[in-house]
Each structure stands twice: as structure tokens, then as C-alpha cells.
């Protein structure tokens, strides 16, 4: 049963998307989500960014279960 996921975006990713949040149908996994984003926002393809699920960076393809908090994080540049 498909459901909607809410995605937060930050920094130059948010700038490229044109918003700091977006909603889409859950593609099921982090890799599928990336492919979906690249289709929708081709500008992201050349950009380095990571995914965080529930505020933890993910290192490899991960299932996106319902209710997860998803965020798109370009390289950090605090300090």
C-alpha cells in the first residue's frame, strides 16, 4: 500500500529543489528515492549529498518504512 513520505532538504539541496521540504510517494528504499529525486530534480545529479533517516546518516541502501523522518543533507559546513 503506497504512502506519502515527507522529506526535509537543507543547504544547496534545498536551493536546487526550490524548497526546504517536499512530499512524494514512498519509493520503498533510499536508492529508489535518490533515483526518483534525480528524475524530478536533474540538478541534484551533480551534487554531493547524503540521506538521513530519523536523524541518522545512512551509508548504504536502506528500506524506508512508514513514518521515518527523511532528510537530504549536503556536505556540512558549520564553524
Amino acid at each position: 500500500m503506497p504512502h506519502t513520505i515527507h522529506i526535509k532538504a537543507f543547504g544547496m539541496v534545498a536551493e536546487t529543489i526550490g524548497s526546504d521540504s517536499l512530499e512524494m510517494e514512498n519509493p520503498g528504499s533510499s536508492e529508489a528515492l535518490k533515483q526518483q529525486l534525480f528524475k524530478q530534480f536533474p540538478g541534484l545529479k551533480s551534487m554531493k549529498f547524503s540521506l538521513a533517516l530519523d536523524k541518522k546518516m545512512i551509508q548504504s541502501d536502506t528500506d524506508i518504512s512508514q513514518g521515518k523522518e527523511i532528510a537530504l543533507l549536503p556536505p556540512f559546513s558549520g564553524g
Partner: protein
Amino acid sequence: MEKERKPKNIFVQGAISPEKIAHSIAAHQSKTDIGGHSIFLGQIRADEKPEGKVIAIDYTAYEEMALEKAFEIREAIFEKYPLTCMHIYHSLGEVKVGEICLFVFTSSKHRKAAMQACDELVERIKAELPIWGKEILDTDNHVWKVNV
């Protein structure tokens, strides 16, 4: 019984003032087991970029994640070094050139622990906290800050 530590807010709206730093130092004068304080301050540089000269940095953060991560780093550093106190403050929003955007403050009985902990905190803050700096240029352009 050990005091349980909870995530603290590290974010400050706009620049961090020298007065805030002085107040923070003064607040430690009643802790007479402290022998050394180590402080790091990050200040905005007027860097020349091909697109223009930096006049300010506008900071944004994934605040909830940054606070969780800062707490995790804090606990790890307290575990590793015999510190009396540790404070981290980072700006959000616009900070102009010459102003301070990061204030890291460690205190310990003997100086080495405070110094080493301060260095390590600064490295981890820059590498691990989801914070982004947008460098505002004098040409109405901007570029995204890159940490090296």
C-alpha cells in the same frame, strides 16, 4: 549519583558577542577545581571568491539532528577527557565578517585535558554537525561554504 546530562541548545541567533564570552568565563570563577580553560572562536573571514568578496555567512541547520549529534559528541568527549565543563555555541542566521559564529569552551583541572578536548570538539563540530553556511558576497551573489 552522577548527574544525568541532557541535550542542550547550542544555537544562538546571529553573532556571538564578546560580552557573552566574558559572562561565560565569569560564570566559571566559582568552580575552584578548574585550573585551565581552553576556548576556540570561529570568526567570519572576508574571503575573496571568484564570484565576489564574502560580507557575511548565513547559517542554517537541521536543528533537531544537530542537537542530538552535539549531545553524542559531548558525551564522548566527557568520557575521554577529565573535564569539569564543556560548552558549545554556534550561530544561526546571518553573521557578518569579523563577527564570531562558533564558541567552544572546555575547562579542566590540568590544562592538557581542556586543550585536547577543545581541539577535538572543534574538529567534530565541523565534520559531524548538520549545519550549512551560505557565504553572502558583495556582488549580491552567494556561494555555499565548504569545510576543508
